[in-house]
């Protein structure tokens, strides 16, 4: 049988903005970049941008011309590949793909053993990374917690060591300043087998936060310049939770201001190094609760729009999902995380991070991380398209079974009964069976999974020579 004009939808189709709306936001952005400009608190940056055609006022306010923006967009990479530590391409950051990972630097942990909230320590980081290594739904890792038992000057080195020791999955790392960034890169180079090896098969991307979208702070700019020159991937984030504070409170104004910062960072990176692997931060959320003065990422507003901008430009995307404002692993935690994880995946959030984040980015829980893994499994199942062919239409089977028979006995059902999704943590038993099996809650079962993984899972072993070199390097600092 042949038929022309057959088209199929492989995966859910989702749009939140039309081409014309995106054009409007784009031109509004260009206008702000030329008219208002962006303040760069760094001499090298201002000089580069000036040489690149920008007018400079008030010493360091850069007015970027539109043609320079178009140039930067045309030469910056549209696909960035993150490898695992064994040199295999693991993440192809392009288009509307979604990859899933946790977040970094949470100060508190909800201890799964005691159900109590306490300051996190280095061991918590090691446990979390090992857990995420064992759960296939997580594609990349971040440091998870701030180790309160390590002095601040060494904290990042130990966080990185904990990541390197407990997984080979790609990682996103965060640093406070340029010297620490250089240290981290040195560590990654040691583990990769040299600077060239890391550059060829990068497994780590640096997540740079700037204090304000229209005035970029020195540390962040310097990290961008350093990593651009090294041609190592990084994310440049225009402002964490600030709609109404550092951007207009209305969503369109927020998007434009974010976009101004993102594009000016992109221009700078490409002027420093053509083709520098710039990942655009297109996080949803960014709301500031005007009652409690807490930054939020979990709500329904601003979801999908920022990601659409990334896709409009074709720039690789860093998103956010699976987080909650809840302080306990309860119904709010599940609801928040599920809703914003699905919407992030639909929007094509790229590197979707902060999965498992609680209490508005202050609290983590291995139990919540395990439950989020289950959500991702559900989502991936939902993403499967409909296969329509003779086998699946099963017209002959329908005819054979006819109006009197049963399908469960057929060879067809035998062949396909394992195609379906059977969740690992969600319980689907009948009531009495569930009681007999212990009457457990989702939290109970997730806890059991965490305990099992921590007791049994062996992450890929680090070579002794690498460990030695890394420890020597940390001690010297």
């Amino acid at each position, binding site marked *: 049988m042949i038929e022309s004009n057959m088209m199929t939808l492989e995966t859910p189709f989702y749009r939140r903005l039309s081409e014309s709306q995106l054009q409007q936001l784009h031109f509004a952005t260009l206008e702000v970049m030329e008219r208002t400009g962006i303040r760069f*608190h760094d001499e090298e940056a201002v000089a580069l941008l000036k040489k690149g055609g920008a007018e400079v006022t008030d010493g360091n306010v850069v007015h970027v011309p539109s043609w320079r923006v178009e140039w930067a967009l045309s030469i910056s990479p549209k696909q960035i590949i993150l490898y695992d530590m064994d040199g295999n391409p693991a993440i192809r950051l392009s288009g509307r793909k979604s990859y899933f990972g946790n977040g970094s630097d949470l*100060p508190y942990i909800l201890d799964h053993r005691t159900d109590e909230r306490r300051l996190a320590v280095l061991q918590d980081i090691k446990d979390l990374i090992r857990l995420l290594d064992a759960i296939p739904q997580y594609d990349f890792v971040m440091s998870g917690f*701030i180790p309160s038992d390590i002095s*601040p000057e060494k904290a990042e080195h130990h966080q990185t060591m904990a990541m390197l020791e407990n997984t080979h999955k790609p990682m996103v790392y965060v640093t*406070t*300043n340029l010297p620490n960034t250089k240290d981290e890169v040195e560590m990654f180079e040691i583990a990769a087998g040299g600077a060239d090896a890391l550059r060829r098969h990068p497994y780590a991307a640096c997540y740079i936060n700037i*204090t*304000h979208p229209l*005035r970029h*702070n020195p540390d962040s700019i310097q990290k961008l310049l350093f990593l651009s020159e090294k041609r190592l991937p990084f994310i440049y984030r225009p402002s964490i939770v600030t709609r*109404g*504070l*550092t951007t207009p*409170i209305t969503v369109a104004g927020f998007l434009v201001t974010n976009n101004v910062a993102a594009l000016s960072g992109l221009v700078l990176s490409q002027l420093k190094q053509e083709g520098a692997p710039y990942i655009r931060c297109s996080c949803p959320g960014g709301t500031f609760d*005007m*009652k*409690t*003065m807490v930054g939020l990422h979990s709500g329904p507003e601003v979801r999908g729009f920022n990601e659409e901008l990334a896709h409009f430009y074709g720039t690789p995307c860093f998103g956010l999902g699976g987080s909650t404002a809840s302080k306990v692993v309860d119904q709010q935690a599940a609801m928040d995380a599920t809703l914003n994880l699905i919407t992030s995946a639909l929007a094509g959030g790229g590197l979707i991070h902060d999965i498992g984040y609680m209490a508005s980015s202050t609290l983590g829980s291995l139990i919540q991380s395990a439950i989020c893994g289950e959500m991702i499994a559900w989502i991936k199942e939902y993403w499967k398209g409909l296969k329509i062919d003779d086998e699946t239409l099963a017209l002959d089977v329908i005819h054979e079974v006819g109006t009197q028979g049963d399908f469960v006995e057929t060879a067809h059902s035998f062949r396909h009964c394992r195609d379906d999704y059977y969740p690992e943590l969600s319980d689907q038993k009948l009531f009495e069976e569930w009681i007999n099996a212990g009457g457990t809650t989702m939290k109970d079962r997730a806890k059991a999974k965490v305990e099992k993984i921590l007791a049994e899972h062996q992450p890929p072993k680090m070579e002794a020579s690498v460990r030695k070199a890394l420890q020597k390097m940390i001690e010297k600092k």
Partner: protein
Amino acid sequence: MADIYEDLSKSLITGNLTGIKRLTQQALDQGLKAKDVLDKGLLPGMDVVGQRFKTGEMFMPEVIYSAKTMHAAMEVLKPLLMGDDVEGTGVLVIGTVEGDLHDIGKNLVAMMMEGAGFTVIDLGTNVKSQTFVDAVKQHKPNLVGLSALLTTTMPKMKETIDSLKEAGLRDRVKVIIGGAPVTAEFMSRIGADGYGINAGAAVENAKTLLGK
């Protein structure tokens, strides 16, 4: 007479920035003393704002607008207030510590403290310890506010407090600290007197520390 005090309070609560100066002038034209206009008309209005912010009934931009309205009223009253009337509830020197450029929280606190009747000297961001010491010598505040958002700049708070001790000024001021990573435990550890978990709490704690 009582009516105009109520109108003034209401104007603050609703954030009537366009009408407040005229209303304040009207009160003065009626023969009311500037100090009474402040104490009986304006400060009660800001108290209500503070209360409503605490319960979540008022939102931050609304509080800020009320504070701006208060500021506008004060512009009319200031030339008429005597000596310590001008100081009002107290004098605050505030700034973000060295190495930190974050200022939104600090700006909020400054605005709300002004609304509560404080005279505020805002040193800005990235303020060295010595600059704080110099400001205390110059302005003789009863309160010093230190802000930091980065965990890496928190040690600068301790340094500032130590610098005040060295200069023999520590006993003359109450030090309050604030910023997302700041905790009560950190406050005790570095020898500060109080800390604000948010701008509203900062104002309350400040007043309590000064016995108001």
